């Protein structure tokens, strides 16, 4: 099957890679994926990746945590079993609220941090026993890999990539 054929172009320098991505993009080729050993600044823009919305989810998770803390302190301390502790009776949530600020803060952080990280792991498909998907083990060391699908344009692509500073170009049958 022709469509499953891809080119793997390897680079050993982040700046060369970034220029190569721009060159390939400028020539109107689709870049399927880039695997990097460390974050390369500006790569997401060069690839045209949309900004991640994880920070926004964290904000809403934080709001959820805060609401949960308010509900919990109100239910436990005011509604279910109000007690007069140290001459400070629990008759109204708002009057007791200063004592609940630490709990409200901690639960906001707890929900925001954990749910955001869980969302990140789910979206990026990271969990225990998950198999790695980088096609070459060198991409976690010092090699950058650009994956470009081939559509009957093998020669053009190889010729283009050879000029961008790739150190190795492989044409691979992808399953």
């Amino acid at each position, binding site marked *: 099957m022709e469509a499953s054929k891809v080119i793997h172009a390897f680079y050993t*320098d982040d*700046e060369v890679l970034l220029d190569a991505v721009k060159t390939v993009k400028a020539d109107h080729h689709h870049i399927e994926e*880039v*695997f*990097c*050993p*460390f*974050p*390369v*600044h500006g790569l997401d823009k060069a*690839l045209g990746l949309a900004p*991640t919305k*994880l*920070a926004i989810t964290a904000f809403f998770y934080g709001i959820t945590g805060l609401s949960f803390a308010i509900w919990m*302190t109100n239910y*436990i*301390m005011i509604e*279910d079993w109000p*007690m007069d*502790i*140290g001459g*400070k009776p629990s008759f109204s949530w708002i009057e*007791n609220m200063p004592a*609940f600020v*630490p709990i409200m*803060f*901690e639960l906001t*952080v*707890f929900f*925001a*941090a954990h749910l*955001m*990280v869980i969302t*990140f*792991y789910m979206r*990026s*498909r*990271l*969990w225990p026993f*998950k*198999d*790695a*998907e*980088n096609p*070459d*083990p060198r*991409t*976690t060391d*010092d090699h950058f890999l650009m994956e470009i699908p081939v559509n009957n344009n093998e020669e053009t692509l*190889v010729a283009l990539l*050879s*000029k961008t500073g790739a*150190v*190795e*170009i*492989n*044409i*691979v*049958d*992808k399953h």
Partner: protein
Amino acid sequence: MSHYEAPIREPLVLGDKSYHDITEDIAKPIEGAANKNWYIAFYISLAAMLWGFGCIFYTVGTGIGVWGLNKNIGWAWDITNFVWWVGIGHAGTLISAVLLLFRQKWRMAINRSAEAMTIFAVFQAGLFPIIHMGRPWNAYWVLPLPNQFGSLWVNFNSPLLWDVFAISTYLSVSLVFWWTGLLPDFAMIRDRAVKPFQKKIYALLSFGWSGRAKDWQRFEEVSLVLAGLATPLVLSVHTIVSMDFATSINPGWHSTIFPPYFVAGAIFSGFAMVQTLLGIMRKVTNLEDYITRMHIEYMNIVIILTGGIVAVAYATEFFIAWYTGSPYENYTYLSVGAATGPYWWAFWSLITFNIVIPQLLWIKKFRRSFIITFIISIAINIGMWFERFDIIAIVLSKGHLPSTWWRFEPTFVDVGIFIGTIGFFFVLFLLYARTFPVIAQAEVKTILKSSGEFYKKRSEQGIPTKPVIEVTSIAAINGVSNNNKNG
């Protein structure tokens, strides 16, 4: 992409390193065999840990009466050790979160180990309240769970319960922050492992990290947001710990200065512990090119700052205690009464180790010396332990009624459990140093071109960091094959 950094800044990575050299250097302690010193340190720590566990079993089996507590001093060594360990933990989060927000690149060489220290220290801290419960199997009663005891709930007005929430949030958030940062580094070890078992373990630990462009984009955003969340979190934790004391009505404890003063003290002691650990680790793991003299100096500057805040807080407490004219205040831990009373040695240990000795760091030569830094860091660790001991034991030993005056004498069980936690801490740290990538190598690679010695020298000569592209640099152009090496 600019890799420029002012030449006046000292390099953060010494030597002529490439990206691959960083991989090799960080992987070496994991892939090589442990040396004799590691085993000696490990077995000593293990022995201390087992002794501590024995003392814990003795305490739980017999009762809290085996400690030196009495009718007047209801908590002493356990809460001292708890606060001491929590405080030590603070430096890790400060380095990884606060310094990330301030864009301090020097954090990258030390954040991994500092965070490991945080997590292991909070483990030790958590042990003490649980043992002090006497019936540790009922520890889950601190959680707001629906139960069968009548509608008995936990009391959210109590600072002790705030502590439960603060410490557990702190521990768990630090843990995921640490682990998320570890994923690319575990993946690096996984991809170069030759032994199948080792490969399996690191594949499991790395959660299948592949390093796609989108993953890195999310990774960076998650790190930034976690740092933003962890920064107020770390300040809240010791604030809440200080409220265990500050919300009480004891003279000496009932003090509004406690929250900022405890936070500064925590960072002070935490940085001292980082210095102690890294001073040894950089030698043992041959990572002297990454944890440089400059890193040590920067941490010493933080120690001078936080130590200064602590000293000012002591002076304020001392002055206010005297200025009130209240006779009770003369029994607080910072008073003439304390300096000349039965606990004079604890008072003067605090002053010497925490205020006098750290002033040596104003001298640049000392600040940049590994051995003097190491000695001073040990002194601060001792001093900060005495601070908590003084706050608790001295204040409680003299209550409002002279008939209740009683002194605290630790038993061998008190001492044993404390030594046990030190042993446990070092067991965890030593195992960590042999099995985890102790430096965030993926992050260090991002600053190599701007802050590496080799590249800095080149950029001074006007040589660009980007290599010149040559068509002949292609090693191979391979035809159709199925070399999908990771399946």
